[in-house]
C-alpha cells in the first residue's frame, strides 16, 4: 500500500482540520474522515480479492467577506484503496472566488455544478465529468475549471459558463470495468483543440409557484466518449480478423439543449429531464453528425407520518429513454427505475433508499439499497448493497456481473 497524496490536497485537508478547531467570523469549515469495507460476492478474471477496504477524507473551507459580497471556497478529497490502485484519488474538488453584485454575480475557479431533478440518471448534468473511480455510479464528479457570470433574466436567473479545459472521466480497472479495458493512452479528440477546446454552457432557471423549470445548453467536448474497438494487431496481421482487446475513447463535439422541470402537487412530484444532442464533428471526415433525444420522466409520492411512523415514506418511479445506441455510451436506452425512500425524523436521521432498475429491452436488473444513521454528534454509519442481474455480454455493464457487493462505512464528521 502506497500513500502519496498530492501536496495541495493534503494542505487543504490540514487547513480544514485546523480551521474547524477554531472557527472565526467569515470563515466556515467542515470535513469528513471515512473508512469503507466493500465485500464483493465473487472474484473476477482480473481480481481475486473479495474484500476491498478503503479510506477517504475530505475537507472544505469557505471565507465570506463581512458585506457578504465576496467569497472563496476550497474543497479537496483524498481516497486510498488498499486493493485497487486505479481507485486511489487526490482531487481538488473546488477552488473558486465569487463576487455578488446588486443584480449579477461572477465566479472563477474549479467548481462543482449540479443540474437536474431526477434520481436514476443525471441526464442534463453536463458541466463536470464523472469520477467513476471514486463512486462507480457516477455520483461523484471531477472539479471543473470555469468562468461564470450570471444575473436576473425574465423573472429567473441566467448563468453562463466558459469551460476552458476538459477533464477526462476516470475509470476503475479492477471492478466496475467497461466490457473491455479502456486504453487511456489511445484517447483522441475529434476537435484539434483537444482538452483545451473552449466549451460553453448556460442555464436559465425560474420558479413558477409550485413548478421549477430549468433550460440548459452546452456546446463543446462531450462528457461521455464514444468507445471504439481496438483490435489485437498480431491477430489482425496474421488472420485479417479483429480480436477486440480494448476500447479507445473518442471525445466528440456535442451541442445539446436540456430541459428539467419539477412540479409539486401536494404529496406528488412530477419530474422531467429531456435532452436533445447533436454529436460528431463535421470538420473531420467519417465522423458525421448524429442527432438524438433522451429523457427521464419521474413521479415521486411522499406519505408523511404514515401508520404513526415519525417520518416520510416515498415512492419513486422513473422511466428512461435514450436514442443513443452507439459506442456503449449508456446502458439506459429504455429502463424503468422503481424504489422506496424512507426518511425517519429520529435522533439519528435514519434514511433508506431502495431502487430497482430494469432494462425493458434486455431484462438487465440493477438493485441498490442505501441506508445510513447517525451515532452521537460526529459519527455516521452507512451501508450500500448493489446487485447486478441478468446482464447480457454486449452491455456497458457486462463486467458488473461479478461485482455484486455490500459496502459498510463509518464516517467521522467535523
Amino acid at each position: 500500500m502506497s500513500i502519496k497524496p498530492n501536496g495541495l490536497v493534503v494542505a487543504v485537508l490540514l487547513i480544514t482540520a485546523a480551521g474547524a478547531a477554531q472557527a472565526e467570523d467569515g470563515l466556515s469549515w467542515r470535513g469528513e474522515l471515512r473508512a469503507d469495507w466493500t465485500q464483493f460476492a465473487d472474484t473476477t478474471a482480473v481480481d481475486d480479492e473479495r474484500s476491498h477496504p478503503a479510506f477517504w477524507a475530505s475537507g472544505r473551507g469557505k471565507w465570506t467577506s463581512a458585506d457578504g459580497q465576496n467569497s472563496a471556497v476550497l474543497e479537496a478529497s483524498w481516497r486510498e484503496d488498499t486493493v485497487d490502485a486505479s481507485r486511489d484519488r487526490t482531487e481538488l474538488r473546488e477552488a473558486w472566488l465569487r463576487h455578488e453584485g446588486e443584480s449579477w454575480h461572477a465566479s472563477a475557479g474549479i467548481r462543482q455544478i449540479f443540474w437536474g431533478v431526477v434520481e436514476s440518471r443525471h441526464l442534463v448534468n453536463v458541466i463536470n465529468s464523472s469520477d467513476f473511480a471514486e463512486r462507480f455510479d457516477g455520483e461523484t464528479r471531477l472539479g471543473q475549471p470555469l468562468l461564470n457570470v450570471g444575473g436576473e433574466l425574465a423573472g429567473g436567473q441566467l448563468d453562463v459558463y466558459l469551460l476552458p479545459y476538459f477533464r477526462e472521466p476516470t475509470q476503475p480497472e479492477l471492478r466496475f470495468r467497461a466490457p473491455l479495458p479502456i486504453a487511456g493512452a489511445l484517447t483522441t479528440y475529434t476537435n484539434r483543440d483537444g482538452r483545451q477546446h473552449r466549451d460553453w454552457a448556460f442555464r436559465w432557471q425560474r420558479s413558477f409557484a409550485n413548478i421549477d423549470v430549468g433550460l440548459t445548453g452546452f456546446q463543446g467536448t462531450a462528457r461521455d466518449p464514444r468507445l471504439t474497438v481496438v483490435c489485437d494487431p498480431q491477430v489482425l496481421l496474421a488472420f485479417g480478423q479483429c480480436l477486440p482487446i480494448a476500447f479507445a475513447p473518442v471525445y466528440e463535439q456535442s451541442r445539446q439543449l436540456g430541459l428539467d422541470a419539477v412540479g409539486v402537487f401536494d404529496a406528488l412530484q412530477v419530474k422531467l429531464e429531456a435532452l436533445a444532442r447533436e454529436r460528431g464533428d463535421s470538420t473531420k471526415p467519417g465522423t458525421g453528425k448524429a442527432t438524438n433525444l433522451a429523457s427521464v420522466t419521474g413521479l415521486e409520492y411522499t406519505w408523511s407520518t404514515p401508520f404513526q411512523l415519525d417520518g416520510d415514506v416515498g415512492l419513486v418511479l422513473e422511466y428512461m429513454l435514450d436514442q443513443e445506441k452507439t459506442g456503449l455510451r449508456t446502458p439506459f436506452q429504455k429502463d424503468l427505475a422503481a424504489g422506496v425512500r424512507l426518511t425517519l425524523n429520529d435522533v439519528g436521521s435514519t434514511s433508506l433508499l431502495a431502487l430497482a432498475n430494469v432494462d425493458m429491452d434486455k431484462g438487465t436488473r440493477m438493485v441498490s439499497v442505501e441506508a445510513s444513521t447517525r451515532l452521537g454528534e460526529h459519527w455516521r454509519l452507512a451501508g450500500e448493497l448493489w446487485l447486478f442481474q441478468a446482464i447480457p455480454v454486449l452491455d456497458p455493464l457486462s463486467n458488473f456481473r461479478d461485482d455484486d457487493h455490500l459496502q459498510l462505512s463509518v464516517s467521522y464528521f467535523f
Partner: protein
Amino acid sequence: MRRLLLCLSLLTATAFADDRGLELARTADQRASGYKDMGADLTMVLKDKLGRESRRELAMQVLEGTSDGDRSLLRFDVPADVKGTALLTHAHSDRADDQWLYLPALKRVKRISSSSQSGSFMGSEFSYEDIKPFEVEAYSYRYLGEDKVGAETWYRLERLPVDKDSGYTRQVAWLDGKEYRWQKIEFHDRKSTLLKTLTFTGYQRYGNQWRPAQATMVNAQTGKSTVLQWQNYRFGAGLNGKDFTPEALANVD
C-alpha cells in the same frame, strides 16, 4: 320560534367569542410584525426520557412577507454530518408552502414536498409546523377566558388548525395581556389528548420587537423534551428576496 331565537343567540355568542379570539391573535401577530428581516442562531437540546441529550445548531434568516407569506432560510451546523445543509421555505397562507433543500455532498438544490408538517424537526419535539412563523390565517379561534399568572393577566384562546395535514386537532394558547406575546401553548393530538406543552421564557425587546430567549417543548406522552434557545438576534440587516431564492440556496454553504 323560541328554538330559533335560542339558536340565533348561541350563534351570536359563538361569533362574538370567535371575534375576540381572532382579534387577540391579530394583535399578537401585528405586534410581532414589521421587522422586515431578522436573523438568529438557534441551539436545540433534545432530551429523551432517560435524560440523554443531543444537540442541534442552526442559523436562521427570515424575510417578512408583504402580500405573500414569509420566506425563511435555515442553515444547519450541528450535528456535523448535516453541516452545510440548508432549507428554504416560501410560506403561503392560501396554498402549501414551497420548500427546497440544499444537499452539500452533491451540491444539489432539491425541491421537496412540504406536506410533512406534523413530522419531527431534526428528531426534536418540535414539528415542522411548530417552528413555522405564526400566521393568523392558519387557525380559527375561540376566546376561552382570562387567567391570573402571578401579577399578570393572560388571555386563553383555542386555536383550531385550518390545514387538514396538521398533527393537532386543537391547541390552547396563552397571550400575556401587557404585550400580547405567546407565553404557553398546549397541543392536543388527533385523539384529542394532551400531546405537548410549549412555554416561552426570557422575552427581550429588540427595537419594537419582543423575542423569547428560550422555548421549552415537553412531550406529555413520551416524557421527551426539547429546549430551543435563540442567540444573536439581528433585525433589519437589509436582506431582500434575492437572498431567499432556490438559485441563491447553493451559495449559503
